């Protein structure tokens, strides 16, 4: 099995640690991983701003880069949801459909495709799990509190395999952090307030780390934590799942 690793643009530029952990974790689990060097972005920033018609270049590039792999895996629920819902190609729609079918967010790939049941990760800290909306409500990697349905959570299932990790409870299990792409600058006041509220739920319950399957939400919360002078850190879930005893 060969997996094409899709590293979203802002993770490539600002959070290489999350990308490295994703790569190492998949390799540790016996997967052959290839990182196509000519990748850029899924096109979501334009599309969510109402400029889906400007994403043709990104779409074609994505198909060029990733069509040949058995699976495409990425440490970002939001970018994967965008590909799943909106990747199209005028000339190569069949290939676009194939790509849409084989893209996976990292945690769902681990639980649903690799079906892993144990990890040798160790992370002796108090951790708060942020359920990013696009992964949760879009990709359905966790059950949603609005629905009358049995609970499950793929990220949580994986965190439970990590030795020493203590998961903290939250008052609001799946409230949005307010990042929202360009929303974070277009609606600055509300975005910040949502982020402040989300962060304080984690702080109130004694989190040392806030983790999640989407780095963009974590970047937003990190911006707030650092402005507050807090020592609490954000860490992509791949970095926790890839951690070992030191």
């Amino acid at each position, binding site marked *: 099995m060969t997996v094409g690793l899709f*590293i979203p*643009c802002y993770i*490539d*530029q*600002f*959070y*290489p*640690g999350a*990308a490295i952990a994703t*790569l190492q974790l998949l390799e540790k689990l016996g997967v052959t991983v290839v*990182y196509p060097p000519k*990748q*850029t*972005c899924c*096109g979501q920033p*334009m*599309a*969510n*701003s*109402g*400029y*889906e*018609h*400007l*994403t043709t*270049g*990104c779409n074609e*590039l994505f198909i060029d880069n990733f069509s040949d792999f058995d699976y495409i895996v990425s440490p970002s629920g939001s970018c994967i949801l965008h590909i799943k819902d909106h990747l199209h190609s005028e000339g190569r729609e069949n290939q676009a459909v194939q790509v849409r079918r084989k893209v996976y967010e990292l945690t769902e790939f681990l639980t649903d495709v690799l079906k892993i049941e144990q990890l040798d990760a160790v992370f002796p800290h108090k951790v708060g799990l942020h359920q990013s*909306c696009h992964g949760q*409500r879009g990709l359905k990697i966790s059950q*949603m509190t*609005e*629905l*009358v*349905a049995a609970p499950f959570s793929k990220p949580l299932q994986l965190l439970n395999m990590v030795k020493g990790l203590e998961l903290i409870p939250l008052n*609001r299990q*799946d*409230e*949005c952090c*307010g990042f*929202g792409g360009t*929303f*974070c*600058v*277009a*609606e*600055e*006041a*509300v*975005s*910040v*307030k*949502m*982020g402040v*509220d989300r962060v304080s739920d984690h702080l109130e319950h004694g989190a040392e780390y806030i983790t999640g399957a989407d780095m963009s939400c974590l*970047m937003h919360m*990190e*911006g*707030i934590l*650092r402005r507050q002078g807090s020592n609490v850190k954000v860490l992509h879930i791949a970095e926790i799942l890839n951690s070992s005893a030191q």
Partner: protein
Amino acid sequence: MSAMQTKDHAELAGQFNTDENRVDWHDETLWWIRQKRDKAVNQLPEWELLRETASKIKEHVLSNLSNYLEAFEANVLANGITVHWAADAKEHNEIVHQIIKKHGVNRMVKSKSMLTEECHLNEYLAKNGIEVIDSDLGERIVQLAKEPPSHIVLPCIHKKKEEIGDLFHEHLGTPAGVSDPQILTETARQHLREVFLTRKIALTGVNFAVAETGEFVVCTNEGNADMGAHLSEVHIASMGIEKIIPNREHLGVFLRLLTRSATGQPITTYSSHYKKPRSGQEMHIVIVDNGRSVQLGRKDFRNSLKCIRCGACMNTCPVYRRSGGHSYHNAISGPIGSILAPNLDMEEYADLPFASTLCGSCSNVCPVKIDIHDQLYKWRQVIVKAGYTTKAKTAGMKVMEWTLSSPGIYHAAGKAGRIVMKYAPFAVNNTLNPWYKQRDMPKPPAESFDEWYKKNRGKK
């Protein structure tokens, strides 16, 4: 942007957020209602099936709307009620005005009608010398405050009880500083009793119009709509064309969903069925289109007409809770308002579909399963294509497209950006950057993943 444009959502929400304690109070009040809703719906194992059923019934109605409207009209007429058809808000207001004029009165009592808010009936009638008193307590409070409702079910949810006390002191003569809800409610009760007894004409909204029988159902907790209607000589009911349900038995689905979704109650205190005028009374139904048939013709947005006005999407919306209903500058606020309003005026409401993180909670609580957040995304595309966006935003997006469509340019720009952030942080860390105002920028790493990969795996 048109000169007519009022302040947009971001600006109004920014004003709302200047008082953080108030934002917290507003957020927690509505979150409490969302939690009440969760408790109520979790008592019904068949909840998701109910939602699906309601959604399908509405879908069927929307696909056969003209037939059901005609069937409803025939049965209404047979029941002795007069039917009026209004193509738009203006016609609706004129019809109501004509009925009032015919009876030679200059005042009316009204309750539970978001449609008349949408049509701006009160302002229209006031200009024509007719006084309207809203009898629903929340509606009366915002009316005294000369404000529009901020929420479709809880019109004065943005007001604290102390502020209501001040309004009652000014308008209804309660002692200054009194904010005890029981005293205020009793005061409103006495004040409205006089109104009920002296108004000849009462107008109500309609929650459900049953095609099979020609009856309509009005759901309230206070019973004030009933007081107005039962004491009146003339009862006018205003309804949008989408309020139709085929049969009476379908109420068994919708009444179970409506109030559990709205407030977490099993059912409204009053679910009143109106079928025919009592002896000596006159009844009118005004059936209003006002853009609904246009929306019905929009493939991507027609499902918005399934809405039963429960307000659950507002209570759950993290943006609504932190920006307040008035920031949507539309009769219907929140997520549902944001997908309905652009249909009425795309330019005026171009900002609303962007007042969302697309988190999707709204679609999950919706009792008729409207794909609200997907429609928000789709409206964004329509609005940009129609040109209701700023040139600066379009220019920025084109630069982004150019950068992201080319791996070479992207990597060069990324590297340049990180170098700037490292060596000239003042270029991004300033108040011109809305991110930086209240959040720190990410620390630029020494190398991108791409660079790391080339060094560490490239030669394998």
